[in-house]
């Protein structure tokens, strides 16, 4: 198996936590992985992305070539579109529907949604709302991760295991909250 994922969003939204959970689960599964991320200047409210590559064979490049990503996971709808050149023709796009409008020329949300809806395979989730219902707006990233679990090539239980290990040091409550968010997100995914 080989899964190439692009995670995108706006600095501070928590895409790196998603990457960490998937990465941890991949490693525990004995899979090879490389995950490249952006630190520094762009983290101040700019667009951020991470390339995550999981495979049962060694991974060569830290970066995903154009047109080769199986999956885009985006915490922000306009940012989901920024990486379309990397998405495979039959790849999936899973995005949060709630925009981060921190630029003066943020486009009309309907126009963004029109573009997303033109894709053959997409899941649009109001991750912010589901996260709040789950208990905290801060777990929107994990809700979105839950919605992607059918496409990762790693079982749901392994991803849940990754959450336990990543959030362990923050205490039981945080682990449980994130597990709840993962489950709530999974309910948004189509059965595959």
């Amino acid at each position, binding site marked *: 198996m080989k899964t190439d994922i692009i995670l995108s969003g706006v600095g501070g939204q928590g895409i790196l936590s998603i990457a960490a959970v998937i990465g941890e689960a991949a490693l525990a599964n004995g899979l090879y992985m490389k995950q490249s991320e952006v630190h520094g200047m762009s983290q101040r409210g700019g667009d951020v992305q991470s390339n995550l590559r999981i495979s049962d064979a060694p991974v060569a490049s830290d970066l*995903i070539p*154009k047109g080769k990503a199986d999956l885009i996971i985006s915490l922000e709808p306009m940012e989901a579109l920024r990486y379309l050149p990397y*998405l495979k023709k039959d790849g999936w796009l899973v995005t949060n529907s709630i925009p981060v409008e921190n630029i003066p020329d943020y486009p009309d949300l309907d126009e963004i949604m029109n573009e997303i809806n033109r894709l053959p395979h997409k899941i649009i989730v109001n991750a912010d709302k589901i996260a709040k219902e789950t208990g905290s707006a801060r777990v929107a990233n994990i809700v979105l991760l839950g919605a992607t679990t059918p496409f990762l090539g790693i079982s749901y239980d392994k991803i849940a295991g990754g959450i336990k290990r990543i959030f362990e040091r923050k205490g039981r409550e945080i682990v449980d909250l994130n597990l709840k968010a993962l489950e709530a997100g999974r309910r948004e995914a189509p059965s595959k």
Partner: protein
Amino acid sequence: MNKVLLLGDEAIAQAAIDAGLSGVYAYPGTPSTEITEYIQASGEAAERNIHSKWSANEKTAMEAALGMSYVGKRALVCMKHVGMNVAADAFINSAITGVNGGLIVLVADDPSMHSSQNEQDTRFYAQFAMIPVLEPSNQQEAYDMVYDGFELSETLGVPIVLRITTRMAHSRSGVTRKPVKKQNELSFPSDPQRFVLLPAIARKQFKRLIEAQNTFIEKSEQSSYNQYIDAPNRSKGIITCGIAYNYLMENYPSGCEYPVLKIGQYPLPKKQLLHLVESCDEILVLEDGYPLVEEALKGYLGIGIKVKGRLDGSLSRDGELTPDNVAKALGFPQEKTTEIPEVVKMRPPSLCQGCGHRDVYEALNEVVKEYGQAKVFSDIGCYTLGALPPFRAIDSCVDMGASITMAKGAADGGLFPSIAVIGDSTFTHSGITGLLDCVNENTSVTIIISDNETTGMTGGQDSAGTGKLRAICEGTGVLPEHVRELIPLKKNYEEMKRVIREEIEYQGVSVIIPCRECIQIIGKKKKK
């Protein structure tokens, strides 16, 4: 096999701890910051009493690391590529003195300038200093190179440069650790004279360094990091440096059809290079950064070996390598991919809502408007974002500390008002000496030290001047009544504007210190 998931930076840090490190010295700079942070957070490092406090700048870091090496201990100094410009005096001369304990100089280059002002290539610095370079292609190699690098440094008697790029620094993968080594005992150089670079001694030492070059080349030829991978199609030979190898192999999942020379250790291995050049019709060089290998092979006139790379347009002269531009250089057909829809807008980084720098610029902009010709020289840090809308508040950003000295030069040339905006950490990094220049000539400049009590842009590291800025300014000779402290908040705008106006009107050196803690740091503290 027990693998740990580590960023390239973290693998380097863990390797240094495991290799018997006694101290890391560094000033924060993307993409090198996480190395020192990892050691600071490591329980093992704390148990072993490994020094890991931040230094005031890269030069003080380099010198402290050399001092630790002098007493026989293993030391690591880390910086981003432009930090090497600051450390260069100590760095170049450390190759002349040589080392006692193993010394690794870790430099993280930033091709494509993700967070930098240029894309200078540290391999040229190492070539200039005439010392070996290690350049990993993956996280495990990064670990191994640091783990073995200290011994290599001790064997060869010189510092070793470890060159990484952003993608190596900030990419995570599984890494297998090696057994933990003990730290070195305190010991002094057997030939203590060599650290006294009086001309007579320096001449001797320089000859020794020149003579060692052949040994360095032999070491490279024997190094397992330099691999010759033969293949039947000799119409082309490919040289890859560091992570370029990954982009090549991404395009050849089941093995490259051409012979490949994978470089991980410099100076370049002569034997293998010669073999590749003699066996193949032409050479393609894949290297991140400047065309160092390509230029060396081609020669200035380009009338010898047929070499392709960044100089002949096979690859762009600037910007980092990617699997896509490497595919193009290899001659693979370019598949058409989806375009980014037009509706997508640029989302540049910006100052955080609630950041004190915002209030400083709001007030400053209004005062500056009152003067026809005011210029604001700024510096390296979050506040550089004041260049972007809605502020458009600054006229320059060149290098660490240049705000104060450029303001001085402009004032000397007749500009009024000449204003500098610098952050607290940048001020202690390289601003103090420039301030002293201003004081010594009583230049009419208005210097704003926008103090957020941290090194903000790199994620909030300790700032060397926290709580000491007034004392430092007065210590250099700024008159106490012209060191003005403020709290940058909306409710204080009128006071801020008044103070800025008064100090602009004062014909001498003034320092205004608007001080309010970075809101990111306040947020982090709350989470804890």
